[in-house]
């Protein structure tokens, strides 16, 4: 009981696997393709005659030619050289909410009754999946306090984009679109907030933290005007400090006639404790692959949810899924809608997982997520802050929500070892590298752990012990840390200029080969 491994004798799989284009031999086949029947061939003739002459491919694509076992083995090896949440204590990727993704959900999304559904099927034949989507939306209304939900977004950033489109549509309808051309956000809010605002042509005003680590209220007051379209803000920000003046922020922007958009990509510390609408927000969004537990799939597919108040309901991305008392249907009759964001209806596999997740936890279970992730986070912080050279800037003594931004600044100053060095070294201890910070790094030498509710006390103890050991190394043998990793899948150090110098940069094997010539 209470046992955890210290100084785990770890080594990641290292297969030194060749590049796939170099493997195989001409003529090998990995999979055979169904052929047209004899009669079809008889009537259709030669395939090459069914293509306009100028469009017939002149030179076959130089794809690899490999047998099936060899393809499988290659990718199995590459998978072993990848550290997913399933095989490590993935506390380090803070803001990413690397919680356990239940395996029963994977069985559900692999059902033929889902996997083999075409999105253009008659609604009478997809009542099951529509029911799941409809109920998801109802649950998200309960969780957010909002009145309308669209599940169109294919990810969190696209949900934020939908909210900016909604801002534009709202002010266009009011005839104020030309005047209201500024969006206010904070430097510690996710970069997709300024990114989406700028994509749609808004001027972005960025608030910086005050001495307490919270967005500067005076700066907000100075920023709002008749040009303010909206405030887009995360709470808690990456620091994990709950912004207890959030209501004031909302009121100030509302008084100026702007809308307020809550970035709730990471809901983990908030489930059932506070709701976006109750804090006065007009809109919010969720990343359903994060707090609602879908596996992150090497960066997607994820899914987002756009949630808005009654006043903005008419604008959400279409179609929405509705229920008329007897059947579920896709509602395209939304003339003021911002329209479609993505092909078809978002990412339904993530929506099934979110449904199963909510159903398996219920109202109290959902609240337990928040309670335990807050508890875990503050426990881990306490452990980590005993490590020499590691500190937690801002709001000393104040509890954090579900994550925290820490800083190795002191350790760097004393040893020359940076957070990037430690980030590589931690891999040698059997953990995924960690998330430092979004750009720019407002805090020096950042490190942002997020010990979500699915990690045990023993997991956290092992995790903290590894950092204690690395800090010790930094003070006694800094070169060891700087030279890391030694036990990762890639055992050699890359030449960085290949990734920073355009003249040496290649995104494909053929381009790389050409550069060498």
């Amino acid at each position, binding site marked *: 009981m209470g046992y955890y491994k210290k100084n785990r004798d770890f080594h990641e799989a290292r297969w030194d696997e060749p590049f796939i284009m170099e493997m195989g031999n001409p003529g090998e086949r990995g999979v055979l393709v169904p052929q047209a029947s004899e009669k079809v061939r008889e009537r259709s003739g030669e395939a090459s005659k069914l293509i306009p002459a100028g469009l017939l491919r002149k030179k076959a694509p130089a794809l690899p030619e490999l047998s099936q076992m060899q393809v499988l083995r290659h990718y199995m090896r590459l998978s072993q050289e990848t550290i997913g949440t399933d095989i490590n204590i993935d506390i380090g990727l803070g803001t990413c909410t690397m919680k356990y993704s239940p395996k029963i959900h994977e069985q559900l999304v692999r059902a033929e009754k889902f996997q083999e559904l075409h999105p253009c099927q008659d609604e009478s034949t997809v009542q099951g999946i529509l029911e799941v989507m409809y109920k998801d939306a109802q649950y998200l209304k309960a969780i957010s306090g909002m009145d309308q939900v669209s599940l169109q977004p294919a990810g969190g950033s696209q949900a934020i984009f939908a909210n900016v489109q909604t801002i534009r549509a709202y002010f266009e309808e009011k005839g104020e679109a030309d005047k209201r051309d500024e969006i206010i956000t904070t430097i510690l809010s996710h970069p997709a907030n300024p990114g989406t605002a700028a994509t749609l042509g808004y001027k972005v005003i960025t608030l910086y933290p005050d001495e307490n680590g919270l967005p500067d209220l005076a700066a907000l007051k100075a920023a709002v005007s008749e040009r303010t379209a909206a405030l887009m803000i995360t709470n808690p920000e990456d620091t994990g400090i709950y912004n207890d003046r959030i209501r004031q922020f909302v009121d100030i922007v509302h008084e100026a006639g702007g809308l307020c958009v809550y970035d709730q990509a990471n809901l983990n510390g908030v489930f059932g404790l506070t709701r976006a609408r109750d804090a006065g927000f007009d809109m919010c969004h969720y990343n359903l692959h994060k707090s609602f537990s879908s596996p992150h799939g090497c960066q997607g597919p994820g899914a987002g949810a756009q949630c808005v108040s009654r006043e903005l309901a008419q604008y959400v991305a279409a179609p929405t899924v509705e229920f008329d008392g007897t059947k579920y249907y896709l509602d395209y009759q939304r003339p003021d809608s911002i329209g479609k964001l993505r092909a078809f209806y978002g990412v339904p596999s993530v929506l099934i997982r979110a449904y199963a997740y909510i*159903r398996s936890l219920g109202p109290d279970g959902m609240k337990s997520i928040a309670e335990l992730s807050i508890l875990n986070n503050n426990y881990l912080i306490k452990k980590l802050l005993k490590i020499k050279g590691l500190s937690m800037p801002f709001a000393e003594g104040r509890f954090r929500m579900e994550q925290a931004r820490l800083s190795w600044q002191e350790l760097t100053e004393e040893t020359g070892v940076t957070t990037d060095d430690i980030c590589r070294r931690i891999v040698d201890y059997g953990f995924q590298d960690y998330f430092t910070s979004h750009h720019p790094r407002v805090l020096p030498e950042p490190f942002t752990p997020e010990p979500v509710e699915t990690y045990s006390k023993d997991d956290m103890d092992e995790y903290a012990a590894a950092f204690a050991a690395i800090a010790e190394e930094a003070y006694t043998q800094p070169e060891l840390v700087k030279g890391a990793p030694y036990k990762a899948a890639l055992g050699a150090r890359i030449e960085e200029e290949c990734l920073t110098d355009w003249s040496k940069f290649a995104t494909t094997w053929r381009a790389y080969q050409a550069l060498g010539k």
Partner: protein
Amino acid sequence: MERSFVHPYMPNSVPEVKQQLLDELGVKSVREIYESIIPKDLLYKGRLDLPEPIHSEYELKKHVTDILNKNISTEEYASFLGAGCYKHQVPAICDEINTRGEFLTAYCGDTYSDHGKMQAIFEYASMMGELLDADVVSYTTYDAGQSVCSSFRMAVRIQSAAGKEKSVILVPDTMNPDIFSQADAYCRNVAEIEKVPHVPETGLLDMKELKERLEKGNVAAVFYENPSYLGFFEEQAEEIARLAHQYDAVCIAQPQVSSLGIAESPMNLGADIVCGDIQPLGMHLQYGGGQAGFIASRQKLEYMEQFPTYMYGIARTDKEGAYGYGRAMNYRCSHGSREKANEYFGTETGLWGITAGVYLASMGPQGMYELGETILLNLNYLTLRLNELKGVKANPFGRSNFQEVLVDFNDSGKTAGEINRALLEHRIFGGKDLSREFPGLGQCALYCVSELTTQGEMDALVDALGQILR
């Protein structure tokens, strides 16, 4: 939840362990923590209005399965639906690899710890490069629509960087209507997207009209699909690119990836940016959830700088013959430079990129050729058979088609919707009803086949239509 209830996803819900954590923090309850940081008036006092939990896995599986069983899948009914989502053979190893826990649950680990993931994604881009004959291939985007949207904006930025303020994007009026509306909304503040009419008799782009529009001098890019949304090959591909270049416009093309073993890549027909969807390369239908986009170009700096997505680059290492990979030049993305980025960017569809890599490595050049071949033969057979029916005109434009064919029911006395509903009785999903998207075509549907469509299914469709239209 009872205080003593322990959830399998929450190890610290064990009361004794939870107490240890609380003791360490010197608090009596978690409530004490959050009440100290969240203002009272913001605390939610109610209990979330959610259904009570289904505790065991077995019951949960039964509950969800019972709901999903209300669906009827394309394994049960013969399907002639396409329109952007295609049912193809999914090699077993595609499923095997994308369900591996390491790939399934990895996220943004980097060069050293996620070396396998990085290599798999770089290999995906490299194989796409071969299929497209393109040097530069992006990390996967949300879907074809997003790739088209970003390609349009890339073109405007490329023009702008060259000192030309051109903002009109010309597109065929037969293009995918959903993607058109996506792009229209996405580009509204930087570009005007204008539809160029098709020649009524042939469906092909009206080249005279295209030239007239280009002559105005404000066109940033010309876009075409090949095959078009309505299924026919755009035979004038080379001429479109030539005209675009004559007027200093960028040529953007969206090919169907499943055709590229047998049909020429737009890169070799003069296109500058090629974009589209990889769903056909190993992704199940998933009710439209398997889409993922790509953007590709030649190795030209003025193009590469304008990509808004992650790009995975290859790097030499200090060990001979060993390579590493990294996400590079991130200042182009909002992750790297917030509002100064080319466009916004987020978590998109990495797992589908890896899957498409497994697919292409399995298929090889021969597999991709045979895929295209079978589709062409099947579609031609279906077209011939449908034209045996009275009141039905398949391929009214009389073109060469790939995978999909327009079927005109205007002379049948029935609407496309009525016909599709009647086909359900025959356990058939008829082609997509186009009467809402293309009212000008009247009662038409878009019929789709793949290498999986059997002669028996096509014959059964013709028989069923014969009965319905009798």
